[in-house]
């Protein structure tokens, strides 16, 4: 973590274990790390190393078995279901490898979903949707359904949806996993621009170190659920 940046996220010996029959799967095992406000951090590791589980714990989609996940001074492990939902609604935006757009809804309706959940007034919604689409360069696709868009466009819509409630943290889980190399680069460039322009903290999960080297300020390596290494990009 950069010494100058105030800390926005802190994991303190966070563990997430799953019981599978008599066996215990240690998806995340006593991981401690810190992320500064406005920082761009990449979580790296092979498949099954626990990086997506750790990201879900950061996003409040899951709760740690033990340890603390402190975001903006609040330990997510101690929040109630309603407070956790409010955290996901207002403080964090998430993008996924499979885009996770609602296929039967148009781009506009997909972007409106978080605004409806945040109880943003109907009159303001349109402006917020246009603003978010403007940032990802998809103003013309307002009335299209996801199936009418390319993979790169769908991921841009997902980014716009993650940003529409103006979160302070953007969590990206393998956002280029389903995209060709060129489109993947474009998406990462877009995420980097968002980080730089608005100061949004970004935690990016990827298994491509070369891409992380290009845009991340810090790389954290996980293996078998444990944090094994932390270093600056090459």
């Amino acid at each position, binding site marked *: 973590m950069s010494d100058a940046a105030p800390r926005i996220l802190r994991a303190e010996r966070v563990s997430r274990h799953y019981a599978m029959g008599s066996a215990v799967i240690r998806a995340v095992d006593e991981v401690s790390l810190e992320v500064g406000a406005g920082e761009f951090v990449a979580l790296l590791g092979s498949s099954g190393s626990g990086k997506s589980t750790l990201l879900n714990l950061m996003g409040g*989609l*899951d709760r740690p078995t033990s340890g603390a996940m402190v975001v903006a001074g609040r330990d997510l492990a101690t929040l109630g*279901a*309603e407070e956790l*939902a409010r955290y*996901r609604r207002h403080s964090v935006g998430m993008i996924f490898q499979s885009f996770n757009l609602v296929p039967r809804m148009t781009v506009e309706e997909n972007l409106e979903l978080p605004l409806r*959940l945040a109880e943003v007034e109907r009159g303001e919604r349109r402006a917020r949707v246009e603003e978010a689409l403007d940032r990802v360069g998809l103003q013309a696709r307002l009335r299209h359904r996801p199936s009418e868009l390319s993979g790169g466009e769908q991921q841009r819509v997902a980014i716009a949806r993650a940003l529409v409630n103006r979160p302070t943290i953007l969590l990206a889980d393998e956002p280029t996993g389903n995209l060709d190399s060129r489109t993947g680069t474009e998406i990462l460039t877009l995420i980097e621009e968002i980080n730089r322009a608005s100061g949004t903290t970004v935690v990016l999960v990827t298994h491509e170190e070369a891409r992380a080297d290009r845009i991340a300020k810090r790389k954290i390596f996980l293996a078998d659920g444990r944090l094994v290494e932390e270093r600056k990009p090459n």
Partner: protein
Amino acid sequence: MKTYDLVELASRNLRESVLRNSLTTLGIAVGVASLVAMLSLGIGLQQLANRRLEHSGLFDSVLVFTPRGPEGFGPRRAASPAEPRRLDESARQEISRIAGVAEAYPEIRVPTEVRYNDRPFRTVVEGLPPSAAESAAMEGIQGHFFSKPDAAEAILQADFAKELDPDTARLRGRPLTLVYAESVSLGNFPPGRSPTGPAAAGRSPRSDRGEPAGFSVLRKEATLTIVGVTESQPNAGFERFGRARIFVPLDLAEKMIPPQISALLDSPVRQPAPPAQAGSAGRPTDGPLYATLIVRVADVKNIEPVENAIKRMGFSTFSLQDATRNLRQFFAVLDLFLGIFGSLALAVASLGIINTLVMAILERRREIGILKALGASDRDVKGLFFAEAGVMGLVGGAAGVALGWAIGHTINLGANIYLQRQNLPSQTIWLVPWWLVVGAIAFSLVVSLLAGLYPASRAARLESRC
């Protein structure tokens, strides 16, 4: 999430699986239609029975008489300050002003002789108020009701009319002579003097108080025009002097001043009283004394309070209130059972809602996960599925009411065609009152929400994983 957003999203979700959701909604509509059809049949039959009974004059009327009884055959009491109040014109006016009373009129039913084509017949004449025109007895009248309240007209009971002329249609417009006895007051005894022997025809028991001395009976004749023939007679259940077979306007009957049987025991029906003694409570008055008043109420439900109010005035009453109470109880039970049977279809339809929503959860598992990742709380997800159940219930309820109304309307139509072919008057057998419309839609909404309870809870429990 705001309510309008929930409803908007729910409606949008329902439009996605149009066929499945339409079939579920149709199931609700059929359930509600069955409920509405059953209940509207019960309500319609109840109203039909009430209407027939009210028109019969049996259940919306109270007979009022002095505590001694309408015929005066009860024990005589000596004159005292506690003497029962007289059933006179002032009492009639007072009774007419009681809340819920539609009218109060004297019962005039007199044995008399009738001459038609110079042939004599003995029968009973009854005076009818103008309101009798609306009674069930007058529904199938050949001819018409009296043209004026005091018209010199007569309506004949059908059997009696056949005795006069087998072709009853020829009777209309023909004259009929009524021979009757009119009583004339003999004036008052001086105060403090009592008669020593019986009067010519009748004597007041209170003659020693300076009250009427008695009356004389004169033979009178009146020529009336026959204006109608009716199969039955109004107030048939209250007859006591024998079945009346000729009906004349009440005002005319009152002018004839027939000597009531009670008058032989009480006092002349028309008697002047000294001004100083005129009053209403236990005092002689200027005007007729009535043996019996028939008090008709505007609504059968008013019978009991009206009866109580009249009793408080010091009169005795008689009504068929118990019979109407039993009838209302019968229809309440009938409505209950019809409602239960009608609700069965709605109960089955509610299973359809549960099935549809559980299917929707399985299909939209991923979507629910996305919603939660975007910040939807358990309450939001639950609310969304609740709203979907509610929209189906509301739309199904409204469609069901329309369907139930259409079924009822069609059966009404069919039943009336059948009644017309049987030469019977049209009837409203199915009735859908406004409260049933509102109640059925609300019931459908509540049942649908209850059906949505389990699926909504199940959806809310899904984890926020994508």
